[in-house]
């Protein structure tokens, strides 16, 4: 779990269901990428109520960790 940092920009990855979010969580944990499970922000629409938040600078790493392993709905800016 990550503490909110000042001056950090975040992105989120949305999923079709919590199953997807939890599978993704394991994959990010395995790669040592910092993430937090958060409710989907009001301005975004998603199939499922939770999403994974990560630091924007880690996006390439996140995409690589999840590629081919779990279905993603979309990546969005927080």
């Amino acid at each position: 779990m990550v503490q909110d940092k000042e001056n950090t920009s975040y992105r989120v990855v949305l999923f079709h269901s919590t199953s997807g979010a939890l599978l993704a969580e394991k994959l990010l944990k395995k790669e040592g990428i910092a993430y937090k499970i958060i409710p989907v922000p009001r301005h975004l629409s998603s199939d499922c109520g939770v999403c994974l938040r990560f630091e924007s600078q880690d996006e390439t790493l996140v995409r690589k960790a999840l590629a081919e392993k779990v279905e993603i709905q979309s990546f969005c800016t927080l």
Partner: protein
Amino acid sequence: MRSVGANPGRSGHRLSIEAGRILIEAREALAELFGIDDPLRIVFTRNATESLNLAIYGLLQPGDHCITTSMEHNSVMRPLRALEKKGLELTVAPCSPKGELDPREIEKAIKKNTRLIVTTHASNVVGTLMPITEVGEIARAHGIPFCIDAAQTAGALPIDVKKMHIDLLAFTGHKSLYGPQGTGGLYIREGLEKGLEPLMQGGTGSRSESQEQPDFMPDKYESGTPNTVGVAGLGAGARFCLTQGVAHIRAKEEGLTRILIEGLGSIPGVTLYGCRDATRQVAICSFTIHDLSPSEITMALDEEFNIMSRPGLHCAPAAHQTIDTFPQGTVRLSAGYFTTVEEIALALEAVGKIVARSRTQG
């Protein structure tokens, strides 16, 4: 229930997430057991019967043709017979009196409108293993989905859905997966969900703004609150199989089966059914004793010798017709990973005594 207790997938709070993790862990352990790449292709059900009903009712329409075998459990036969009344064409491929299937019997039954081939992986009456890989190859070559009833084999025998060309795998949690009763699942190969209707619709914790059932896995087939407490047990059981190693479990059970077969086969007055070959069956033996009914034998085994057995038709009348023990049935003994050689010896001694007594009285 004591420490987590929340509803998976229905909230963002930490206990709900924790409950969701329990489901994911179980899906992953099962996926690893069966050689499935994507754990989300596994749908949780309450037993293999529900899984088989889902596959059968989900894929078949009146006018379609289905092929099965003469050794099936009623969880396959009853849905198929019910659909037959509504216009399903059904071919029951004959098996030998030992319960063996020749894959060519399946192949020669294939027609233009064959939409599903469903067979047991191992008979729940005599234990005979079916030639799953060969049947899977035939099914794949003809583009027909192949469903196996793995109630007797999941956790007890290595299963690899890719190598065995399995499209749908129905399993139960309460047998060789060491889970609680009330758990089970169905693996659905990628793409098949498009043409497979769910048995129920309802809330899934996803796409909640829509009044239409989601079309993605596994939510399409998992409406309502799952049996989280059961799945926790199922996951632990599946993990146990992985830690012990299925090959190791199989080797032990095969050894016990060999002793049981040799023992039962050498008691005069006992008829032992099936292949009588531990390498070609799971750890199940069905036998009868001349002049005694299966129920009498089971009662004696239970009351006098503390040996649990199951008499009768084992919910598989078709199988008993095939091995020619219909309608009286057989007594079925089965060994497991925790059965000891001493317990097998006691069982054999008990059967011997029951036979001897029936002779002096008869």
